[in-house]
């Protein structure tokens, strides 16, 4: 039996009625060893902040394991949620508190560099956008990453790598424009 899939619709401007969670941005609890803040701004094609976007993240634990039974290599750290959710504020800012994930096995014996999968929803987006955040202190792993390697233009590729900003990592999401973030087809 094959059922036709349900189409996507925009999240609209009023999702704050139901979707934000008090602990949404806490992929890991405050005080977790090695916790970092990753965030930035969501900007539109005119460079203006997008104050009604929802950013979600999904990632492995520091050993590269997922809190999910379909990870065939065994369980993640007990209690590791792996998921973050943050609505943007009036300035388009979002942020999550997390830990750096481990690398992941990839096809052909390769390795995926540590990264976060990211979903972006907003008023004006009729479907989800998907992108990734890679880490600036992993130049070797990033150079060997299959997805990054599939993007020929180094300037475009670099937009998937967060920027160190004091004790935080900054990752701006440009929906459109000269600095448009590479979005992914899954």
């Amino acid at each position, binding site marked *: 039996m*094959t059922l036709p899939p349900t189409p996507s619709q925009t999240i609209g401007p009023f999702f704050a009625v139901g979707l934000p969670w008090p602990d949404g941005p806490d992929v890991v609890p405050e005080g977790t060893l090695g916790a970092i803040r990753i965030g930035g701004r969501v900007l539109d094609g005119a460079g203006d902040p997008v104050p009604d976007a929802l950013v979600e993240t999904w990632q492995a634990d520091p050993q590269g394991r997922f809190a999910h039974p379909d990870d065939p290599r065994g369980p993640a750290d007990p209690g590791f949620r792996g998921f973050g959710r943050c609505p943007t504020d009036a300035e388009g800012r979002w942020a999550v508190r997390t830990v750096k994930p481990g690398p992941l096995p990839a*096809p052909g014996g390769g390795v995926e560099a540590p990264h976060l999968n990211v979903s972006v929803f907003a008023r004006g987006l009729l479907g989800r956008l998907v992108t990734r955040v890679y880490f600036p202190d992993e130049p070797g792993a990033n150079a060997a990453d299959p997805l990054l390697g599939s993007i020929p233009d180094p300037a475009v590729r670099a937009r998937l790598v967060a920027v160190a900003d004091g004790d935080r990592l900054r990752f701006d999401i440009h929906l459109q424009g000269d600095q448009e973030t590479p979005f992914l087809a899954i």
Partner: protein
Amino acid sequence: MSETLKGQAGSGLVVPPYPPEAPGTHPPLDYPDYRSTRLRFPRRPLVALPQRLGEVTGPLLGEGRVGQRDHDLTVQHPGEPLGERIVVEGRVLDGAGRPVGGTLVEVWQANAGGRYRHDGDQHPAPLDPNFSGAGRCVTDAEGRFRFVTVKPGAYPWGNHHNAWRPAHIHFSVFGRAFVQRLITQMYFPGDPLFTFDPILSSVPQAARERLVSRLDMGLTTPEWALGYRWDIVLRGRDATPLEDGEDDG
């Protein structure tokens, strides 16, 4: 990189694949009739991301997040909300027809007068002190969800002159994998506003009816509430997993 990881790839790492959805399912991101898309849709082609561990897994957020009465939007305040009381029930299924159990379903909606409890909603319709408009539940083993609420009202918006949204309830569903995540809207049968609404009309015509619930007299409760039934079908998972390392993506 670690030798352990290298050793694991291609030596028994099994990743269940989720085939692409048929063209004609989802709306295009570039859809000028919905004005807010103009500065927000990406203009560069999407980069292909082969499915690996991070795509076939996803957040499994269940019971701990949902209170016993969170599925009933009519009991969250001291009094009952105004409006037409309804029951909305359905199943979350995958493309192969299998139930997706244990998955979080979140909903939000306007009140019966067409007003959201949100600072940004300027529609001069009254707020209802007995209605917040948010609910959540976790599907059972058969993939079933059930909400009790009031039918949301239509409301005007600024997209074009005399623009009105048909009555709808927003749905957010996780499924079991990052690739299955879906946010969408459920509509009510026979709404005369359908043809004027660019958001529903953005969906390819043949797929539009999948967003419209149906009145179900079996679900309708005598002397109490009308019942609307609506199933959500997430991207399907292939029956046969493929072994990582045998596929170049």
